[in-house]
């Protein structure tokens, strides 16, 4: 793919599209949870109002330059990951970075947030970050193992090629159909990656005063909200690209996003919160062995 005007337009427009879909997903999430709890719930674009309200605060409090820069790194990192994940119509950056690059770029926003929260000098924030990093140990291992399995099976570490192969073969070649163990393991780890209950240990309002968000207000909190909305799109798109055959057009992508999101919300809505070490133990006892069995199968030639 060469650099062209189309690519340039995509570069400008893609974050906005992702943010809009994120807003709808977020609002749908709140509506869905409300309906599960037999309430009406806020309107679908409620996250948009939240973000506008936060970004328009008149006085903003920050604890230093690292705090400011960290929020920029937070959004920057997520948008950067966004660019490298191939979507229908825009896979320009896939030639410059494969899945290994994406797996590492996902860590950049967490690191940025961790540094910013560290500077706020609030122990609730530090505890929140410590929990976020510990959860990373929990969910990254099964997720990466599933990816390693898929890469070994297809002989490539490029996400774009994985998508092309799955689309060429139809539903029968989707990752979740050819390797259901890997797909299920990845889905469970996805629940952890997206910080949804029962793995929602980072933001624990009752235990640690919302963790990293403790000292964030105004535009800083607004930027965290924006990042969260884009991040849910990125994470689910990664899962869809690996196991659900990517998407040939945006309608298909949106349908798949909502489908996966509904599945995640269904679990999120009815569970309480694990303790950190319980969450890590669960992620190592259930999805990790599943993924290991799946990878063994691939190594032995089955599946």
């Amino acid at each position, binding site marked *: 793919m060469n650099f062209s005007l189309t690519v340039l337009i995509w570069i400008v427009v893609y974050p906005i599209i992702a943010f809009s879909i994120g807003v709808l997903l977020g609002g749908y999430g709140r509506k869905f949870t409300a309906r599960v709890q037999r309430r009406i719930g806020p309107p679908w674009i409620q996250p948009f109002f939240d973000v506008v309200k936060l970004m*328009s605060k008149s006085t*903003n409090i920050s604890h230093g330059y690292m705090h400011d820069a960290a929020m*920029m790194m937070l959004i920057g990192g997520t948008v950067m990951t966004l660019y490298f994940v191939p979507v229908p119509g825009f896979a320009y950056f896939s030639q410059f970075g494969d899945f290994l690059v994406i*797996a590492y770029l996902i860590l950049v926003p967490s690191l940025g947030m961790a540094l910013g929260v*560290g500077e706020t*000098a609030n122990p609730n924030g530090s505890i929140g970050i410590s929990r976020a990093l510990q959860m990373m140990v929990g969910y990254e291992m099964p997720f990466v*193992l599933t990816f*390693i399995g898929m890469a070994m099976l297809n002989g490539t570490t490029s996400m774009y090629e994985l998508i092309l192969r799955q689309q060429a073969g139809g539903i029968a070649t989707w990752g979740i159909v050819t390797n259901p163990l890997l797909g299920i393991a990845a889905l469970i780890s996805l629940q952890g990656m997206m910080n949804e209950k029962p793995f929602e240990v980072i933001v624990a309002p009752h235990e640690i005063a919302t963790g990293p968000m403790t000292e964030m207000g105004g*535009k800083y909190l607004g930027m965290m909200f924006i990042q969260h909305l884009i991040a849910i799109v990125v994470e689910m798109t990664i899962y869809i690209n690996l196991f659900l055959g990517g998407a040939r057009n945006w309608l298909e992508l949106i349908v798949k996003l909502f489908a996966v999101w509904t599945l995640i919300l269904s679990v999120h809505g009815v569970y309480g919160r694990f303790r950190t070490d319980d969450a890590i133990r669960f992620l190592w006892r259930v999805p990790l062995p599943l993924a290991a069995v799946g990878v063994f199968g691939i190594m032995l030639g089955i599946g």
Partner: protein
Amino acid sequence: MVTLYLLILPLAGLLLTTLVAIAGGAGGDGNGAGAPGAARALVLNKAVALLGFGAITALAILARGEIGAIVEGPVVLGFSLSFGLTPLSWYFVMMIAGLTFLTVVFSLASVRGGYPMYYGWLFAKTFGMFGVVMAGDLLSFFILWEVMSWATFFLMQQGTQEARRAAVGYLVYALVASMALFAGVFLLYRAAGSFAYADIAGAIAGFNIGMLLLAVALTIVPMLVEAATYPAHWWKPPSYAATETALTGYLSGISTRIGIYGMVLFIFVVFGLETIDRLWISTYLNLRVIIMVLAALTMVVPTFTALFQHDAKRLMTWHSIGQGGYMLVGIASGSVLGVAGGLFHVFTYLTYVALILFSIAAVESRTGTTNLNKLGGLIKKMPLSFLGLLFGIIGLAGIPPMNGFVSKWLIYRSLILGGHPFIALAAFTATVGTILSVYKLIHNIFLGQLPERYKDVREVGPVMQIPIVILMITVFATGAFPGLVLPWVARIQESLGLTPIAWSLTGVAPEMGQLNMAVISAVFTGTFLLGWLIYAIGGKRKHVGQYDNYAAGHFLDASVPYNYNYEFYSGIEHIFGRLYERPPIKRAEAGLVELLKRAGDFTRRIYTGHLNTYLAYTVVAVLLTIVILKGGL
């Protein structure tokens, strides 16, 4: 004859600094107490070191043109030693020279005790390391290996009582390894009739499996010990953590990696891949896979041990053990990307670990401690050290856009495409563990609340800032343009008879995979600007101090400790706590020490130390001799 001067200069430096130290009348407790002559001697030594190592670095750069030339050294026991530069040697020579020079510059300001022979031992160690990597035959290799081990011991033991004791621990491991190496060298000499690598490689081709196994055990295992591979890694944490912090950076950066040089030398040059592969148990399980599994264990276990440490230097030492695993796994895999990744990792690791440890040393020089439970909040007081540590930890964790990512990418790709998924998982687990512990490092030192006692701390002076800045630039530049160093790695691979990696200025050529670091760095900058734009859309902001903080309505001030430092990863400590407290290898080592002590106690019964017993022995021996002589006659 640049090669010759590369060996002579460090020796000359050693001689000069020793003379100056003796003349200065120092040599007492090693803490430079008292004598004004000692202070003058130290200043003179610093000047000698600065000039000497500057010259050595310049020579090392010049030596690039002399690759392939052999220098005949002195004749020892009838054998003539030879030294020469192969591409692999020059790679290591450049790294040694560069790091030592930066360490010397940094030490000028950071070393608090007036150790009289500090720079002398640095010269000695440089001589030893140069000799080892430039050795043209096995005898020179062994002799200079010994010199290097002893120099390391002397370098490490400077300072506190604890440093001395820990250095002795290192010496024990090093001597055992050296003796094994000596036996191995002797064995190979007997088989080949000469010490030259080519002759030995020829002789080895005729070995049977038993001899081959013995030869491998006697040569490669000492290299693994020197590279601190699990389970022979226990000498490293006490000794590296107790010594001067600037030295910890230096030793972690390059000293242990000489073991990696040895591994490459033995696996590819002396033995050769086909020979090594003759040792196998089943189709999948051969010696190289066993080394890779050991390397995987080396990556994972020490990295998670580092999580528990509350001393910054110990934490970094555990990391240096873990990162050695990456290099080993890359080299043992034998594939194009793997070997390139392992070799490149030596370089990237050196840059960022030195950067991290120099920042820690800077903090130590201002606050007097490296105890992570006591520090905090120094970001506002020491911003450059913070930035240095930040670049370093981003590199160590292997996150784009720093250079650590490139070498790790190469290694991961080689593992995944080479059919080693669980080792790739181990590598990734180690990365996640690294992120955890380095975040703890930077959080406990620079973030969080600033304790009252450190409110007057200032940033370090320019002498200490220069190496930090230089390393930061290196880490970033080689991250965006790994093609600055990769051609050298490719040349090394060619010289070893392997397929070289197809590199490009910004990463690898398209047929090797998708990696373009310049684009990644550019996107990084671009999206950061996007973040800045969104930030600017919001309203004005004001900066507040650390006491203006959410504490559920409580009024904060300096008397309230409002910080989270201790047991930073309590969830993981819950899970692994028991293993950490009584680690199996430590128990094995303790058991061995106990056994030796008992054996020593037993011999004490014979060598009792009493004069009477020895007289009795003498009398009995004389009588016995008379009886035997009389009886025999």
